[in-house]
C-alpha cells in the first residue's frame, strides 16, 4: 500500500522551477531516504506534501487519500521533525512535548503516557525540567524529534534530523528511527550524510533541480551508475605521462590525483586492479598502499548530481 503518492508535482518560486514533474511512491513500512544537494527541492517537496506550500500542478495522496490543508484526519497520522529546531524556548522539555502531542491527542491520560514514552525514547529523562536554551545542540535535536513523534504517527517526515549533532547523539537518533520503523511507522528521511542513509534506508531517491535522478535500494543505485570499482593507490610524484596512461585505460571512467593518492573509478570488471597496477609498474613507478572497494552511495550521489559546489 502506498503511504505517500506524488504524481507530476510542479512547484515554481517565481522564475525558479523548484519541482519539475516530481514523482514519489513510498510504501508502508519503508524507511525512505530522500537525497539531494542544497536547493534540490527536498524540503519543498515535503512542504508541498504537508500542504504548507501551494503548488502549480500535481497530485498528492497520503494513506491513499487526497491531501488538503483541512485534512486534519490525515494530519493526525503524520509526525514532522523539521530541519530547523521548532520548539518553544520558554517551555520545558515535558511542556514542549506535551504541547505538540496535544495537537494530535486530546485525552490527558493517554497524552501523559505518550509524553513519558517519548521522553524515554529520546533519552531526555534527566532533562525534563530544562528549557531548550539550557540543553546542548544534540539534546535540542532530540527534543525536536520527541515533539514530532510523541503521538505515535504512522508516517514520519524527518528533515535532516542529525544536523550539528555529535556522533553519540547521531547514533541514538538513528537507532530511534529504526525502532520507530520496527514499531510500524513509515519514515521519510532526508539527510546530507550518505552513510546514514545507506545505513537505515530501505529505499533511496536522489533528486536534483526538482527532478528525480534515481530511485531504488542502495545496491540498485550502485548498479545504476557505471562505476563498478574504486581503486586508490598511494603514489609519490606521479608524472603526467603515467596519469594520462591510467586515464587512457579502457576500464577507467575517471581518475584523479591529489599529489599523494591516485583515485581511479573503473567500470565493472575482474581485472581492473591488476590493469591499473601493471600500468604504473610499466611507467617505472613504485607505489605504497592500495585500496579497492565498490562504489559508495556518496560516489553514486556525486556521479548523479555532479561535483561542482552548490549554495
Amino acid at each position: 500500500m502506498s503511504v505517500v503518492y506524488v504524481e507530476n508535482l510542479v512547484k515554481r518560486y517565481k522564475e525558479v522551477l523548484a519541482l519539475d514533474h516530481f514523482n514519489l511512491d513510498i510504501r508502508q513500512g519503508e524507511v525512505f531516504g530522500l537525497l539531494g544537494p542544497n536547493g534540490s527541492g527536498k524540503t519543498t517537496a515535503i512542504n508541498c506534501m504537508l500542504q504548507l506550500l501551494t503548488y502549480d500542478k500535481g497530485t498528492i495522496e497520503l494513506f491513499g487519500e487526497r491531501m488538503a490543508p483541512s485534512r486534519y484526519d490525515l494530519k493526525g497520522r503524520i509526525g514532522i521533525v523539521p530541519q530547523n529546531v521548532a520548539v518553544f524556548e520558554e517551555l520545558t522539555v515535558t511542556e514542549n512535548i506535551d504541547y505538540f502531542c496535544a495537537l494530535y491527542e486530546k485525552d490527558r491520560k493517554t497524552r501523559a503516557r505518550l509524553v513519558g514514552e517519548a521522553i524515554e525514547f529520546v533519552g531526555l529523562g534527566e532533562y525534563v525540567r530544562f528549557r531548550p536554551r539550557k540543553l546542548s545542540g544534540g539534546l535540542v535535536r532530540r527534543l525536536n524529534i520527541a515533539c514530532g513523534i510523541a503521538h505515535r504517527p504512522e508516517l514520519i517526515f524527518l528533515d535532516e534530523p542529525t544536523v550539528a549533532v555529535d556522533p553519540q547523539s547521531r547514533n541514538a537518533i538513528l537507532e530511534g528511527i529504526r525502532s520507530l520503523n520496527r514499531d510500524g511507522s513509515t519514515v521519510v528521511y532526508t539527510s546530507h550524510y550518505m552513510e546514514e542513509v545507506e545505513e537505515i534506508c530501505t529505499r533511496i531517491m536522489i533528486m536534483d533541480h526538482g527532478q528525480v535522478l534515481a530511485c531504488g535500494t542502495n545496491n540498485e543505485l550502485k548498479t545504476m551508475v557505471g562505476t563498478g570499482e574504486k581503486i586508490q593507490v598511494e603514489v609519490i610524484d606521479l608524472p603526467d605521462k603515467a596519469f594520462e596512461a591510467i586515464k587512457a585505460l579502457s576500464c577507467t571512467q575517471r581518475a584523479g590525483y591529489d599529489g599523494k593518492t591516485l583515485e581511479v573509478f573503473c567500470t565493472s570488471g575482474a581485472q581492473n586492479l591488476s590493469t591499473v597496477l601493471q600500468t604504473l609498474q610499466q611507467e617505472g613507478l613504485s607505489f605504497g598502499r592500495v585500496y579497492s572497494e565498490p562504489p559508495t552511495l556518496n560516489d553514486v550521489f556525486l556521479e548523479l548530481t555532479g561535483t561542482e559546489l552548490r549554495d
Partner: protein
Amino acid sequence: MWNTFKYTVKALVQEKSCFVWALAFPLIMATLFGAMFANLDDARHLNPIPTAVVDNAHYRNAQAFSETIEALAKSGEDQLLDLFFVKNIAEADELLKNGAVVGYYQIDEKGQPGLFITAASGNSINQTILKNLVDGFVQTQAALKTIAENNPQAFADPKFLENLQERTNYTQEISIVANEASGSVRYFYALLGFAAIMAANIAVIAVTQTQANLSPLGARRSLGATSRTKALLASLLASWLLAFLCLIIVFAYMRYVLDINFGRDLASIFGLGVASFMTTALGAFVGAIPKIGELLKAGILTVLSCFFALFAGLYGEPSLKLADDMNRIAPLFQKLNPSRQVTDLFYSLYFYDGFDEFYRVVFILLAMAAVLFLLAALLMRRQRYASL
C-alpha cells in the same frame, strides 16, 4: 484548545520584551509622574499659611483684628492661617528669616494692623492672601468709621447691622464635572493609553508563533491535527488575558499606590478589558503582516505608541495643548487614535456623571477592534503559502 491557551500563556509570560514595554515602563513612568505631579496637586490645594503674630498689648487691644485672624486659624477644612504667637518683632523677624512663616502681623500704637513679608519668605500666592486679608480688614474698619462719623443713626437699624455682618457672594460655585479637576490625572490616563498600545506586542509575538510563513515554530504548529482557527483563537485569548493583566497591574499601582482618582473603579476595570481587547486586535493585525520580522514589528508598535501618545497628551503641557487642539481641528483623527480613545475612557469616568460618554468610547474601541481583527483575518486566512 485549552492546552494551546495554557502553554501560550506560559510561553508569553516569559517573553521579557513584552513586559518591559507593557508593564515595567508604564510602572516606572507612573512612579516618575507621581513624584513630579505631587507638587502640582499640592499647589492647587490650599494649605494653612504659616503666619506669625506679635502678641503684645496693642494686639490684645485690637480685639476685632485678633478675633478675625484667630477665627481664620481655627482647625478644620476652612483653616486659612497657621498662627505662631511671638512676644516681639525680633522673634517674628527671626521666624520670617528662617522661612518658618510667610509673614507676620503687628498692630501699631494707633491700633492699625500691618503685614511684614520679605521677598524670600514664601510663595507669592500666600503673601497675596495675607495682604488681602489685612487690606480687607482695614477697608471695612475705615468704612465703619466713616459711617459712624457721617450717619451714626444707621447703627440703630438692626437690618443695617445684620447686613454689615453678612458678606454677600454674588457668584455661585458649581461643578460641571463629577470630580474635582486635577492637573495630573490626564498624564496618568495618557500613560495608560500608551501602555495599552505597547501591550499589543504580546499579540504580535503570539500571532508570529502561530503563522507558518512567520516562524519555523508557526510552520510546525500549522501542521498539527488541530484546526488553525482554534489554535489562533487560543493564542489571541492568551494575549488578551496578559495584556489585560498588564494594564490592571499598572492601573492598580496608579490607583492604590499613587492614589490617582479614576472616578469609578469597576467601570475602569471594564474599560481596561475593552482597551486590552482593542490592543490585542492591533497586535494581531501588526503580527499578521507578512515578510517583516518580529523586531521590526515591535519597532513599528513603539513608533505608533509614541506617535499616538503625543496626541493623547502624554508628553507634558505642550502635548496636552496639542491634544486639545487636535480635538477641535481634527476630531476624526483623534477618534481613530487608539491611545487617545483609551485615555478618553478614563476621562469619561472621571469627569462625567453618567455613562453615556463612557459607552460611546467603548463603542469606538470595539469598532476599532472589529476592523483590526478583520484585517488580521484577511492576512492570516491563507492555509498554504507560495513560499516560506
